[in-house]
C-alpha cells in the first residue's frame, strides 16, 4: 500500500461505498496518520477517532488484502556507455576525517554509490574503513541535506548568494574591517593552497581553522619539545610494549583506522608464532581502546600527571639520564610512585623492549609533554623509530593560538564579515560564548552540508556538496596523496562544493581571481600538475592523472621534518606538570570526550550512526553521564536517573549510566549529540556536551556539579550489563561462551583455554562428533563456507556492523524500537566483563548467524522458510517466511532479527537510493539474519563461471564484515579446501565453537582471546 495511486483504484472505489468521511479517506491514502513519523506502536500518535476510522478502513481493505508496494521499472532507452546494469562499478576516492585521510573504493550500481570500502591499494586504509567513513554514504542521500541557498531566509541561487557575499566583503574591507573565513580541519593540500590564495586575493582576509573538537595538546607539545608543529603518528606494529594514557587511539582518534590495523598485526599469537605486543592502559574513562588492554589501570583524572611523572622517574632511573638535562632530572626526584604499585613493572617492561607511550588527545599540553619526554627517554622518537617524524597528520599544526586570536578579534569588533565554511561553532560552543563572539560581526555567512545551528545566525546560507559529489584531494599521514573524485552528480541539482563557493566569492569580488582555474576541479588538477606531475617523469599529465584516479593514490615523498629537542621547553612543561600534580582537585570532575559513533556531531543525522551501539556502553540514540557504581551510590542515582550537570559554561540534563571500570567521582559524557538544527534524525537526540565546555579545548576535564532532577530517561542500550560470572544470583559458569587465557599459559599448554575437560574443538582433529538425531549433510563436493573470528584481534570498533548495515539494507528502527529490543543489526559485538566492577576485563565477541550444520532454526520453521544449502549456508527465504518467530526463539545465539514493523516505510526520498540492489529490502513480518553475504558468493560464482571455473579461488568471496574489519579478525572461505586461509585459521589451537555442547555444529570458529599480561599466569 504505497502512496502511489496505481494499485489503489479498487480500494478507493470500494471505500466510497462504505464510508464518506473525508478524514477517513485522507487517512486511508497514507495508511497511517500524517503525524506517524517514527515507526512506533502508534500508541502516542493515534487518537481514538483515528483509530476507529482506521479500523473501519482496515475492514474495508481486508478484501483487497495486504500487498507489497508496487513499483515500476523502466529500462534504459539509450544505454549509457561503460555501464552494465547489474554489474557494480568501483571508483576510488578518499575520505577525510579531520586531518586524517584514507583512500576509498566506492561501489556504484547503475550510477549511484551503494557501498563505501577502503581502497586496498592505499597504504593507510589498507582496504578498510571506519564506521563514520562507511556511514558517510548515507549522508549523500540524506533528504535533510537537500536544501536551497537562502539570502535573508528567502530562497536564492548559489550564484546570487556568492555575489551578495562578495558585495558584503567589498563593503567591510572598504571600511578597513577584516574578513575571516572559518574552516574545519582538513587533509587537502589543494584546500590549503586555496586558503592561502584567498588570503592573498581578498584584502584583510584570513582563513582560520577552528574544528568543533579542538584539542591542542598534542600538536602544541610536539611543537614546543620537538620543534615539529604537527601530531606525530606512531607505528604501533613496531612496538613490543604500548602504554596508553587515557588514549583512545583505536576509538575516537581520527587516525584510529591506521592504529587498529597496526595494533592488530601484533595481537594474533599462535602456538607456532607467539609474537604479541603488550598493551597497558592507564585511564579514568573506560575507553574502547583501554578495554582492549592486557592490563588496564584505573586512575583518577587528577592522577594522570602523577602517573606519568612517576613513570618518567622510573624510566629515567632505568635508562640513565638519556638526553635529559639536569633541569628535568632534578624535578623528577620528587615523583611519588607509591600510589601506583604496577609502575615499576611497567617501567621495566617499557625500558627493556621497543615501546611507545600514547597520550589521550583531550589531555593538556603538559601531559602530552610528559608523554613526549617518556617516548624520548624510551628512544621511540626518531627517523626509523616507532614515532617517525615523517609520519604526521597533515595540517595538524597547533591551532589553539589562532583560535584564541580570532576570538579576540571577533570581540573587538574589527571583523566585518565571517564566512563559516562547513564549520558549526554555534553548536560546538556554549551558546553564550558564541553569541558574544558574533554580536559585533556585521555580516555572517554559512556554507554547510546541513543547515546546522550556525546558519540560524547567518544572513546567507549556501548548502554545499557532499564529498562523494565533489572533487578534491588529500594527503595521508605517510605523505602519499589521493584524488577525491565525485561518484555522482550533485543530487541537489546545481549545488556547488565548498571550495567552489569560496572561489566564487573571490571571483565575484574580483573577476581576475581564479581566472585560470574557474572551477575547483581545474584548481585541484592544476596543483597536481604543478606539485605532483612535475618531476614524476611521466610523459603526459592525462595518463598520470588517470592512473592516480584509477589506483586511488600516489606515493609522494613525505614532508621532511626533523626533531630538534628543546630541553628548556620540556623542563618548563615538566614544571607545570609537577605543579598541577601537587594541587589535588576536590569534588566531581567531568570528562567530555568525543562520541565513539558520532565524533563531533557532523554526521549526527545519520541513523546508521545514531543506532550504532557505543563500543563500550552499548548505548544508542543518546549521550549519557557515565559513572562508576561507587559514584552512583555516592550521588544516590541509578542508571536512567536524569541529572542536572552544571559547569561554569553551562548546564544540561543527562541520564546517569553506570559503567564498570570508570574512575570514581568522575562523570564522562560524549560530544556529537543534542543537535537542534542537524536534521530530522538527529533532532533532540541526547544533549549537547559542547555547551559544558568553556574552551579553549572543547574536550577534556573540568570541575562539575551534579544534582538529581528526580526525573528519569529510558536509555536504549543493545546490551545490558551482564558479566560472565556476575552478580550473586546468576553465579553460573558460562565459560563455554567466551574463551580466554594469558599468552604464557597458552604457549605452555594450549588446552588450558578449555575448561570443563571438553576436547579441544577448534583443532577438529581430536574431535569425536557427538551423535545427533539430525541427518548428516554431505558437503564433500564443491564449497563449504566457514568463517573464523579472532577475538584476540577484535578491538570492537563497529566497522563490521556498519559494513553489514550498508551492504544488507538493514533498517534503522529508532530509539523506541531499540528500547523494545528490536534493533535489526545482523552482526553485533557482544561485550562481556569479567572480574571486579571497578577494574573489569573486557571480552568482545562479534556475534552473527553461526550457520549451524544442525541448525535448530531450520527444524522448527513450519513453512520451511529457513533451510540448509549444500554449501553449508543457513538460508533464509524471505518470500516464504510467514513470521512465526519460532526460528528466533530456538536460536541459541539469538542472532535472528524480525521485522516487527515496516521499518523501511518511512524512508524518505532519496534515502532509498542507498539500498544495495543485490539484497532484498525486507517488508514487515519477516525474519532476517546474516546470510554470509550470499549475494557476494553468487556474484563471485558468476564471474568464475564466465572464466569456466566451478570452484572459487580462496579470497574471491569477501563478506562485508570481513572486508571492513581493520583488525583482519574475520576470515571467510571454503573449508573444504585445506589450503584456504579459513581452513588454516580453523586449525588454530585457539579455535573454539560458541555453545559447542549444544552440538549444533556452527560454521564459525572463534579464536580465543589471549592477554599478554606481564608476569604470565596472572
Amino acid at each position: 500500500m504505497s502512496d502511489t495511486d496505481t494499485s489503489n483504484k479498487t480500494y478507493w472505489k470500494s471505500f466510497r461505498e462504505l464510508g464518506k468521511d473525508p478524514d477517513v479517506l485522507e487517512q486511508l491514502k497514507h495508511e497511517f496518520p500524517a503525524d506517524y513519523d517514527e515507526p512506533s506502536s502508534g500508541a502516542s500518535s493515534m487518537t481514538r477517532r483515528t483509530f476507529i476510522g482506521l479500523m473501519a478502513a482496515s475492514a474495508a481493505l481486508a478484501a483487497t488484502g495486504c500487498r507489497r508496494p508496487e513499483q515500476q521499472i523502466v529500462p534504459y532507452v539509450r544505454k549509457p556507455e561503460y555501464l552494465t546494469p547489474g554489474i557494480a562499478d568501483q571508483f576510488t576516492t578518499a575520505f577525510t576525517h579531520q586531518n586524517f585521510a584514507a583512500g576509498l573504493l566506492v561501489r556504484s550500481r547503475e550510477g549511484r554509490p551503494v557501498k563505501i570500502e577502503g581502497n586496498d591499494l592505499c597504504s593507510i586504509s589498507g582496504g578498510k574503513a571506519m564506521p563514520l567513513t562507511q556511514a558517510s554514504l548515507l549522508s549523500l542521500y540524506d533528504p535533510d541535506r537537500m536544501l536551497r541557498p537562502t539570502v535573508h531566509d528567502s530562497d536564492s541561487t548559489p550564484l546570487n548568494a556568492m555575489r551578495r557575499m562578495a558585495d558584503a566583503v567589498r563593503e567591510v574591507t572598504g571600511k578597513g574591517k577584516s574578513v575571516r573565513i572559518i574552516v574545519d580541519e582538513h587533509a587537502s593540500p589543494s584546500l590549503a593552497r586555496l586558503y592561502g590564495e584567498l588570503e592573498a586575493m581578498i584584502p584583510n582576509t584570513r582563513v582560520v581553522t577552528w574544528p568543533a573538537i579542538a584539542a591542542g595538546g598534542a600538536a602544541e607539545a610536539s611543537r614546543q619539545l620537538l620543534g615539529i608543529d604537527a601530531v606525530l603518528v606512531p607505528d604501533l606494529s613496531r612496538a613490543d610494549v604500548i602504554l596508553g594514557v587515557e588514549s583512545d587511539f583505536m576509538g575516537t582518534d581520527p587516525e584510529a583506522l591506521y592504529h587498529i590495523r597496526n595494533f592488530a598485526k601484533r595481537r594474533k599469537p599462535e602456538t607456532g608464532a607467539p609474537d604479541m605486543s603488550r598493551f597497558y592502559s592507564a585511564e579514568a574513562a573506560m575507553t574502547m581502546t583501554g578495554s582492549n588492554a592486557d592490563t588496564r589501570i584505573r586512575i583518577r583524572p587528577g592522577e594522570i600527571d602523577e602517573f606519568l611523572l612517576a613513570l618518567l622517574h622510573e624510566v629515567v632511573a632505568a635508562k640513565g639520564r638519556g638526553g635529559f638535562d639536569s633541569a628535568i632530572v632534578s624535578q623528577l626526584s620528587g615523583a611519588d610512585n607509591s600510589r601506583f604499585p604496577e609502575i615499576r613493572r611497567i617501567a621495566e617492561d617499557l625500558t627493556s623492549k621497543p615501546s611507545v607511550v600514547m597520550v589521550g588527545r583531550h589531555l593538556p599540553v603538559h601531559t602530552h609533554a610528559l608523554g613526549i619526554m617518556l617516548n624520548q627517554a624510551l628512544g621511540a622518537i626518531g627517523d626509523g623509530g616507532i614515532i617517525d617524524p615523517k609520519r604526521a597528520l597533515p595540517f595538524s599544526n597547533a591551532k589553539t593560538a589562532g583560535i584564541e586570536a580570532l576570538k579576540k578579534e571577533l570581540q573587538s569588533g574589527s571583523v566585518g564579515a565571517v564566512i563559516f565554511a562547513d564549520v558549526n561553532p554555534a553548536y560546538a560552543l556554549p551558546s553564550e560564548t558564541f553569541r558574544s563572539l558574533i554580536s559585533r560581526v556585521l555580516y555572517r555567512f554559512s556554507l554547510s552540508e546541513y543547515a546546522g545551528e550556525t546558519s540560524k545566525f547567518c544572513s546567507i546560507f549556501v548548502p554545499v556538496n557532499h564529498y562523494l559529489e565533489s572533487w578534491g584531494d588529500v594527503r595521508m599521514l605517510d605523505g602519499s596523496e589521493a584524488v577525491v573524485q565525485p561518484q555522482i552528480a550533485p543530487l541537489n541539482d546545481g549545488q556547488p562544493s565548498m571550495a567552489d563557493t569560496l572561489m566564487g566569492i573571490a571571483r565575484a569580488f574580483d573577476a581576475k581571481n581564479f581566472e585560470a582555474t574557474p572551477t575547483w576541479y581545474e584548481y585541484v588538477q592544476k596543483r597536481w600538475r604543478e606539485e605532483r606531475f612535475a618531476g614524476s617523469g611521466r610523459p603526459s599529465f592525462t595518463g598520470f592523472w588517470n592512473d592516480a584516479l584509477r589506483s586511488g593514490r600516489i606515493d609522494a615523498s613525505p614532508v621532511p621534518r626533523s626533531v630538534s629537542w628543546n630541553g628548556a621547553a620540556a623542563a618548563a612543561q615538566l614544571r607545570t606538570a609537577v605543579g598541577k600534580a601537587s594541587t589535588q582537585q576536590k569534588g566531581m570532575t567531568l570528562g567530555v570526550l568525543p562520541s565513539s559513533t558520532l565524533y563531533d556531531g557532523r554526521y549526527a543525522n545519520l541513523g546508521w550512526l545514531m543506532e550504532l551501539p557505543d563500543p563500550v556502553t552499548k548505548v544508542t540514540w543518546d549521550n549519557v553521564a557515565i559513572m562508576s557504581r561507587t559514584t552512583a551510590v555516592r550521588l544516590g542515582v541509578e542508571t536512567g536517573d536524569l541529572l542536572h550537570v552544571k559547569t561554569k559554561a553551562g548546564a544540561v540534563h543527562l541520564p546517569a549510566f553506570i559503567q564498570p571500570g570508570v574512575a570514581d567521582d568522575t562523570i564522562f559524557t560524549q560530544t556529537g549529540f543534542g543537535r537542534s538544527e542537524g536534521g530530522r534524525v538527529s533532532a533532540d537526540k541526547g544533549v549537547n556536551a559542547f555547551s559544558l565546555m568553556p574552551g579553549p579545548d572543547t574536550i577534556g576535564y573540568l570541575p562539575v556539579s551534579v544534582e538529581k532532577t528526580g526525573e528519569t530517561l529510558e536509555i536504549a542500550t543493545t546490551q545490558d550489563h551482564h558479566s560472565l560470572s556476575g552478580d550473586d544470583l546468576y553465579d553460573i559458569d558460562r565459560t563455554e561462551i567466551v574463551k580466554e587465557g594469558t599468552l604464557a599459559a597458552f604457549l605452555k599448554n594450549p588446552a588450558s583455554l578449555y575448561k570443563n575437560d571438553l576436547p579441544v574443538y577448534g583443532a577438529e582433529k581430536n574431535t569425536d562428533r557427538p551423535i545427533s538425531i539430525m541427518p548428516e549433510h554431505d558437503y564433500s563436493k564443491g564449497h563449504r563456507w566457514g568463517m573464523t573470528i579472532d577475538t584476540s584481534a577484535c578491538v570492537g570498533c563497529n566497522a563490521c556492523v556498519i559494513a553489514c548495515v550498508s551492504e544488507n539494507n538493514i533498517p534503522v528502527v529508532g530509539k523506541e524500537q531499540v528500547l523494545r529490543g528490536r534493533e535489526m543489526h545482523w552482526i553485533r559485538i557482544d561485550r562481556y566483563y569479567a572480574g571486579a566492577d571497578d577494574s573489569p576485563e573486557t571480552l568482545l565477541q562479534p556475534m552473527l548467524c553461526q550457520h549451524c550444520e544442525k541448525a535448530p532454526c531450520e527444524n522448527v520453521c513450519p513453512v520451511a522458510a529457513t533451510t540448509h544449502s549444500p554449501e553449508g549456508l543457513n538460508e533464509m527465504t524471505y518470500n516464504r517466511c510467514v513470521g512465526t518467530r519460532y526460528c528466533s526463539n530456538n536460536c541459541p545465539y539469538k542472532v535472528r532479527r524480525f521485522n516487527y514493523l515496516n521499518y523501511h516505510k518511512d524512508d524518505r526520498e532519496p534515502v532509498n537510493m542507498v539500498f544495495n540492489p543485490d539484497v532484498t529490502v525486507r517488508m514487515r513480518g519477516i525474519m532476517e539474519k546474516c546470510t554470509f553475504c550470499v549475494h557476494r558468493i553468487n556474484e563471485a560464482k558468476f564471474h568464475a563461471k564466465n572464466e569456466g571455473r566451478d570452484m572459487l579461488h580462496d579470497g574471491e568471496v569477501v563478506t562485508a564484515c570481513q572486508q571492513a574489519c581493520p583488525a583482519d579478525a574475520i576470515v571467510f572461505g571454503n573449508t573444504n579446501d585445506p589450503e584456504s586461509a579459513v581452513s588454516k585459521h580453523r586449525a588454530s589451537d585457539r579455535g573454539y565453537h560458541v555453545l559447542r555442547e549444544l552440538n549444533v555444529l556452527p560454521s564459525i570458529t572463534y579464536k580465543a582471546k589471549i592477554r599478554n599480561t606481564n608476569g604470565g599466569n596472572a
Partner: protein
Amino acid sequence: MRTVTDKHRQDSWNIEGGGALAVDPHDLREPLVEGTPKPADVTETVSRVVESKPTRLWYATVTVTGALAGWGILTILYTVFTGIGVWGNNQPVGWAWDITNFVFWIGIGHAGTLISAILFLFRQKWRTAINRAAEAMTIFAVICALIFPIIHTGRPWVAVYWLLPLPNQMEMWVNFRSPLLWDVFAVSTYFAVSAMFWFVGLVPDFATLRNRAKNKIARIAFTFFSMGWTGANRHWHRYEKAYLILAGISTPLVLSVHTIVSFDFAVSVIPGWHTTIFPPYFVAGAIFSGFGMVLTLMILARKLLNLEQFITVKHIENMSKVLMATGLMVGYAYGIEFFIAWYSGNPYERFVFINRAFGPYSWAYWTMVSCNVFIPQLFWFRGIRRNLLITWIISIFVNIGMWFERFVIIVTSLHRDFLPSSWGMFTPTWVDVSIFAGTVGLFLTLFLVFAKYLPVLAISEVKGILPGAQPKHGHH
C-alpha cells in the same frame, strides 16, 4: 449378563430411587439430581431457557462481552495492518502473550472432551449434567485458541494457508519436522472431533426442541439440525454407537493435543523449554485449567439458569476433587523441573530455573505457584469443596494461575537464554492486553449465546440418571 458391580449399582440406585431417606448415608452415593423430577420436568426446565425471551441481564451481559470481543477484533485488525510491532514481543522474546494465550485457551478446551469422552468411557454418570456445557466451552475455547497461531505470525495473510500442506505448482511443502505444523494438525483435528462430538450429542435435544418450537425460525432451524430424529429405537441404537465411537476417538485426542502443544517447547533447544516432562505436565495442566474454567462457568450458570437441581453440589465437589488432583500433578511437575535442573548439572538449565523463581519475573512465577499449587490445597477440606463461593473464587485463581504458567514457561525461558549479551525483558502493550481481553469477551459471548439458545444440559442424558430411571433400562 450382569456383573457384581452392576448389581451393586442397581441396588444403590434402587435405594436412591426410593427417596432421600437413605438407610446409611456413608454407604450410598449422593443423588446426581436433587428432588424427584420427572423426565418431563427435565425437558421443561431446560427448554424453558431456550424458549423464553432473553432477560435484561442477559442482554446487558452480552453487550459487555460482545463489546469486549469487538474491541479484540479491532485490535487484531490493527495488528494485522500495522505489524506485530504493536505488541510487546521483541528479541529475544519472540513469543509472549500470543502463544501464552494460545496455550491457555487450548488448555481450557481440555475439560470438555475429558468430561464427555473419558468420563463417559469410565461411566462417571455425574458427567451428564455438565458435559454439554463443558463441550461447548471446549469448542469456544479452541476457537479463541485458534486465533493466535494465525495472528501471531508476521504475515497472517499467507500463514493462513501456507501452514497447511496444500498441493501447489511449486511443490513447496510444509516442514513436517516443525512442531508448529504438528500443532496445526493436532489442534484442527481436536476442534473437528470435539465439534462433531458435541453436535452428535445435541441431535436428540434438537429434536425435543423442534417438537416444542412455536417460533417458525426456531422450528426450521431445529428441524434442520435434528436431522430427522424421531426417537425411534433404531435411532437411539445408532446414536449410542456413534457416541461411543466418538468418545473412543476423542479420548486419545485429549491426551495428544496438549502433548503436541508441549512439543512446541520440548523439541526446542532453549533451556526451560527443552524438557521431557512437558507432555504429561502439560496434559495435567490442561485438565486442571479446563476444570477450573468449567467450575467458574458452571457455578454461575446453575444459579442464573435455575439448574441447581441438576448441577448439584456433588458435581461441584467432584470437579473440585479433579482440580485438586491435577493441581497436585502440576505442582509435582514444578518441583521435578527444579530437581532435574539441579540434577542435570546443566548450567543453563539451572540458571533458567533460578531466574524463574528469583529473577525479574519471579512475581509471575510465584503467582503461578500460589494459584496452582498452594490455593487448591484448600480443597482438602470438604467444607470448602462444598462452599460454592469459595470454590468459585478458587477456580478463578486457577484460571489466573494457569495463564501465568504459560507466561512463565514462554517468557522467562526466552528472556534470558544462553548468551547474556542478548538478554532482554518483555513488557506488554495495550494491544496485547486488548487482544487477550477480546478473546475472553468472545469466549463469554459465545458461551452466553449457547446458554441462551441451545439446551445447556443434555436433556436425554440427564433423563437417564433421574432417580429411578436407570433400572428400568434392562437392556444390558
